[in-house]
């Protein structure tokens, strides 16, 4: 039996028909068509499906769709504003922090959650913030650099 669910996704109100077995990731990818969030493992171990739920990073594959009723979700599609990249995104582009790109959406959101809460993170803070996001291509160095560059730029306005 399918159920009606209301929630806010990327500042837009949505009313969606969901299967109670659907995860938030399935809601986003299959029901809404927001395919930027990726599924690398389906059980919360890789972080490629990281989205912000009421501002906090979560693995969308571990949240049931029905749990987000009335709540606020931000996905990778909602990070750039009016075609302008978020400083985290532009720093990842410039610093070579994306290769195959499959982990990148999750990394952007994990980093955004960090910088929203901590404007001047140390390298250790950055590494902790993305420790739930596996990347198999970059070795993390250029991702960490990019997040540090973004933090500096955001502080300096």
């Amino acid at each position, binding site marked *: 039996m399918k159920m009606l669910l209301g929630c806010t996704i990327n500042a837009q109100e949505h009313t969606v028909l969901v*299967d109670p*077995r659907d995860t938030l990731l399935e809601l986003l*990818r*299959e029901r809404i*068509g*927001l*395919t*930027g*969030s*990726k*599924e*690398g*493992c*389906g*059980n919360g*171990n*890789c972080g*490629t499906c990281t989205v912000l739920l009421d501002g906090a990073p979560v693995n969308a594959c571990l949240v049931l769709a029905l749990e987000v009723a009335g709540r606020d979700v931000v*996905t*990778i*599609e909602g*990070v*750039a504003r009016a075609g302008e*990249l978020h400083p*985290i*995104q*532009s720093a*990842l*582009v*410039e*610093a*070579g922090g*994306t*290769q*195959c*790109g*499959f*982990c*990148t*959406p999750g990394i*952007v959101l994990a980093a955004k959650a960090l910088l929203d809460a901590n404007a001047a993170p140390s390298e250790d803070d*950055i*590494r*902790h913030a*993305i*420790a*739930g*996001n*596996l*990347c*198999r*291509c*970059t*070795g*993390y*160095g*250029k*991702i*960490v650099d990019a997040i540090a560059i973004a933090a500096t730029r955001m502080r300096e306005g």
Partner: protein
Amino acid sequence: MNPDPVEAPIARLKVIGKRLARVDAKERVTGQAIYPADLSLPGMVHAKILRSPLAHARIGGIDTTRAQAMKGVVAVVTAADFPAMPVGSTIPMGETGYDMWMVAAINMARDKVHWIGQPVAAVAAVDLHTAAAALALIDVEYEPLEPVLGILAAMAPEAPVLHEHVFTKGIEPRPRAPSNVCSRVVISRGDPSAALADAHASARLRVKVDTAHQGYLEPQVAVAQVDANGFATVWASTQGQFTAELMIARMLDLPASKLKVVPLEIGGGFGGKIAIHGEAVAVRLAQKCQRPVKLVLTREEVLQGGSGPAAGALIDVAVAAQKDGGLRAIAGTYRMDAGGLPGMSPSLLMQASAALYQCPNLNLEGFDVVTKKPRTEAYRGPGGIQAAFAVEQAMDMLCQRLGMDPLEFRKRNASVTGSLMPIGTPFPAIGLDTILEAVGRHPCWTDPLPPGAYPRGRGLALGYWRGTSMTSAAHITIAGDGRPMVTMGAVDLSGTRSTMAQVVAEEFGLAIEDVHVQTGDSKSVGYSDGAAGSRVARTMTAALVEACGDALRQLRSRAAEKLQSAPELLHYADGVFRSPQPSGAAISLAELMQATLTDGAVVGRGVSSKLPLGVEIGAHVCDVEVDTDSGLVTVLRYTAFQDVGLALNPMAVEGQIEGSVVQGLGWALLEGFDYGADGRLRNASLLDYRMPTALDVPRIETVIVETPVPNVPYGVRGVGEVPIVPPAAAVANAIARAVGVRVGRMPMTPERVLGAIRAAPGSSCD
């Protein structure tokens, strides 16, 4: 006209060699990049695969009646839906071809299952929930056979034969009885036994390497559609659209002209996406139900299903030197655990283990052995890390016995341009001596190791990877605004579109923004081999230099007509043709194309085949701290030196090296398949199969050395594979220098390190 690019002073390059962002980076950071799992087609149904629960069994029968009758199920397939593949069938690929009997077995078991996780049936249904439920309604009758899991057990004369058709290759006369040893390779020169017996110092070591996984974050996926004429289109995550097409066509007995493979973005491959894993099954399901079919593997299927972990190994090596450190002998026995189907020849990894040393006496013997575990596949520099883990540790032990600095020992024995490779041919230009000089000058080697709470050590290890060339094709059309539009036959595994845009921009004298590069599907560009063996950047550069020359020649003759000059008199630079003085009349590519677009298309074509190899060489230096209470090894500092010929884009090169090193560190310290006695993978998740996180590794420093390869455009070498080769040995050598023990088993987990420390003579622990 065009000066030979190899001779062009590097300082004159305007686009090549610059640290430019990937041309596709913005799509990646905004979530707009399209991977095949993101695709949704009208009427699309979803597939799931039923997999063997046993490591070795005969299939008595498969009854799909109940599954087919389930509401929502639209198609079911088993091996009966595919033509039987004769033993020995191959498709073209590189020098040797690719074994299609194996590809068929990876995708659908017939008569027998060879590992837990091998596909035995597949279902397509209106949604995934239904497809998953339908799998439980397929009845498979198995007659269990004895699983053989260990390498030595499989090699034992009394071992049950796992494949009746496998007779050991490389033994003369050809054996009469089948064997679990699929192939044997010997590389020898001189008299290593005598050299070992007479040498001033020698070292012997046995290492065991657990199977590990490529760990690409995107699971295998295919979306298949068959139109009313029977023409099939497959959107795939593949390292090679042409290889995938050949494999799918052969598995389905479909003419290649009735099939197109469209490569979309690929979320990592590292060797694991050379062969098809379900693409042909998805097409067969689509043919049966006449609806588009999407098949996405789960992470557990990726790890356990036979989509390609890397071969485990059991290696014995012995090395010997004279008193002054001159290397006299390398002897090695390399046993590779291929898993459930025959694997690759051990030749390349054997060569890798001895190539970097000038050594008069060699005896290397390698075996490819089948066991009842998931079938294995190439993984970045396949076999190199296993071989280096053995040989580079043995060299380090030899240095300790000689009382010689490990860098001085390498300098004393390093292969140089012209010295003999293990296979007996002389090395083309290599820069190992330059690399070793750079190591000796670098703070990572000269800085004293700072003291820590626990013992610390510094390790050095070398790495070699031969790579391959094979063939690449591309064409360039000139758009109405005069800009080159490139279609290449290679998928973009490592930023290829970006580096190839740099090459074309350089050749045309344009900015990178003026060039558009796309990957062609298997029907829109010429045949190219897959992205493997560090071949694409080199061979595609060669193909594109040719295609640019071809297009520019055509443009030149058009310009000559417009400028009323002889073509050879025109000067071309930065997108403009100019007549000689005094006229000095000029026409830009944009003006030229606007004036001549309807005269016919300008298409520049380029093909590269048999390009000289671009062998990869690296030296790595690693500092570790070993927690002697827990066995935890922390990598404190890591520096990778590598000769890349010429860095097309230093940022991309660093990215390749850094990522490859971290994969190597993962296998060195964390990653290994843990099989139960029944052949079941006990850590088939990314929680239990632990790949490095941002907290597990330090920043990887890179030092790029450039020794161009002769007769190769821009002198480019392979980059991505060799950095994975030395890390495990470098870490092991650092551990040995810190706490005086060799773990002998990869990964060097805390339990194993602690076990080795406690077992060491003189250990105070009981």
